[in-house]
């Protein structure tokens, strides 16, 4: 187990394939103890929020916003409907941690959401689950049934005056619904197109009511924080980067998977946990926080520690903690072309700079990759990105632009070679060998 880096028993137990997701197993490892303590001890709402603030838990979905602060924005003492919503619409390429949390520890999310609902005075919640992971959706529904039957959800929880019910809502294939206001539109039964902010969801959210949306891993971290205390959780990480985090490691490593480590752990250690580089090949670059995060060249990456501040200093972002590892067999032009296709395909079409811009980015990269690049294409790409960034309602436009800017910045020679020689610096058979498909 140690090899998988399980630290938080409510988060990581089972990542090794141990199928102990049911309520009884969860309770055995300390589950629902935090909720029970809060409800039976009648701990004031503000104290719960303060404990989360003390932990410096930062949103695990990508933006890294302090969770306790977000909770304090909710008008908790005002009467009327309020909602807590969990964002399990995990579709950022490279990210696959929420799937494992829901697969192995669905009750940690249920308990975390229930504590959040108590702290913010919400009576109803939804967990929005990525449509592609259907088995996970079904399992979560089963876990909800278990929790209801045991009195952890429903009316008058554990005999307290507090009532809360929680439901699962599934997506059906739209990356944009990971954006919190698009997600709310989607729960309302509409196209998932982001809303203008302000108003922020804490004042105008689901069905126009005050709503707080947090990522799956954020909610799943809550019971542990309540159990060990905010300060102890903070100390498990490093200052301003509280606690532990799941990192999804994918790409050219021997053992892709999810690894829980304290924030501040050296990248080299994480890479080692993931079995090191496949075939002993050399690291070329790494995208440390999901496909939207700028790529970091090997030498810089090897000096990073895995936390918000260090990765930000390296010119990228920790994002969702999705670490995409690329070795020397990777053609950076092809890699970027594929990412750009993704953003072009997933732009919701609402804002012109994003809708048109992502299409231009993909088309220009496609022609470079296919030997039809023009001498001024790199300037053209740069100009398209600056015309997208900051001019759209949501962050998808920026997310599409940052990979383009960073790939060209760090691997410019490779793009120039492609344009000039109409072929790749990395021979196609070398790329193929790198994927390992035919030798597996």
């Amino acid at each position, binding site marked *: 187990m140690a090899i998988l880096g399980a630290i938080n028993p409510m988060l990581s137990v089972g990542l090794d394939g141990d199928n102990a997701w049911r309520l009884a197993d969860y309770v055995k490892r300390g589950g629902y103890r935090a909720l029970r303590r809060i409800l039976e001890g009648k701990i004031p709402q503000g104290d719960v929020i303060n404990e989360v603030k003390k932990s410096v838990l930062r949103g695990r979905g990508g933006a890294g916003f302090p969770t306790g602060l977000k909770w304090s924005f909710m008008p908790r003492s005002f009467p009327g409907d309020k909602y807590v919503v969990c964002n399990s619409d995990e579709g950022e390429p490279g990210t696959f941690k929420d799937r494992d949390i829901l697969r192995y520890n669905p009750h940690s999310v249920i308990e975390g959401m229930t504590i959040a609902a108590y702290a913010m005075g919400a009576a109803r919640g*939804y967990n929005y689950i990525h449509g592609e992971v259907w088995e996970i959706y079904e399992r979560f529904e089963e876990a909800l049934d278990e929790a209801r039957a045991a009195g952890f959800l429903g009316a008058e929880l554990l005999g307290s005056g507090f009532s809360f019910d929680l439901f699962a*809502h599934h997506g059906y294939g739209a990356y944009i619904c990971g954006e919190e206001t698009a997600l709310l539109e989607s729960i309302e039964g509409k196209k998932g197109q982001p809303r203008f902010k302000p108003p922020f969801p804490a004042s105008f959210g689901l069905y126009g009511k005050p709503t707080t949306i947090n990522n799956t891993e954020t909610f799943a971290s809550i019971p542990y924080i309540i159990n060990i205390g905010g300060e102890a959780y903070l100390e498990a990480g490093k200052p301003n980067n509280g606690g532990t985090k799941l990192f999804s490691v994918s790409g*050219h490593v021997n053992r892709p998977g999810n690894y829980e480590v304290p924030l501040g752990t050296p990248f080299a250690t994480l890479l080692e946990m993931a079995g090191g580089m496949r075939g002993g090949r050399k690291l070329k670059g790494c995208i440390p926080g999901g496909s939207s995060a700028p790529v970091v060249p090997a030498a810089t990456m090897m000096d990073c520690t895995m936390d918000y501040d260090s990765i930000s200093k390296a010119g990228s972002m920790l994002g969702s903690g999705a670490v995409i*590892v690329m070795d020397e067999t990777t053609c950076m032009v092809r890699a970027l072309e*594929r990412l750009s296709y993704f953003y072009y395909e997933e732009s919701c079409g609402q804002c012109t700079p994003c809708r048109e811009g992502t299409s231009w980015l993909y088309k220009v990269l496609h022609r470079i990759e296919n030997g039809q690049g023009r001498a001024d294409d790199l300037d053209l790409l740069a100009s398209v990105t600056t015309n997208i960034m900051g001019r759209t309602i949501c962050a998808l436009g920026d997310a599409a632009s940052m990979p383009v800017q960073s790939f060209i910045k760090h691997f410019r020679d490779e793009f120039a070679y492609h344009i000039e020689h109409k072929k790749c610096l990395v021979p196609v058979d070398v790329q193929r060998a790198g994927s390992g498909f035919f030798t597996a």
Partner: protein
Amino acid sequence: MLTSESLKRIDREIAKYPADQKQSAVMAALAIAQEEQGWLSSEAIEFVANYLGMAPIAAYEVATFYNMYDLKPVGKYKVSVCTNLPCMLTGGVDAGEYLKKKLGIGYNETTPDGLITLKEGECMGACGDAPVMIVNNRRMCSWMNPEQIDKLLAELK
């Protein structure tokens, strides 16, 4: 239009939302309709809209926005292959090419016997299991090397 079993499932979805927010069940209802009928005809979309008391165009907007809905008939099995970057690095693109060769069709095409439709998918949130593919929007298949793909094809009859 839909069987009583499907309607019962849709009713269960409606019950998850406040009484005046039936439209919230439209995504689930369309998925259930597609599961029963294999794809979403305009008639099916309109039926779902009427059942939920919403404008048919609003349901149509949803059906066209989310890419797991099929607005045209597909084969008995729809196989979506993820070729996004993390999968690509671990053989996702090669897996797609292997399938194309085996089936003699390209992406968005169906085998002449109507058995299998091949689709190129976007990130399925399972990059650690690459290459991954999904059968009929429901069954996630992990670590799909040539041997695993052969096994899957033999099973899809």
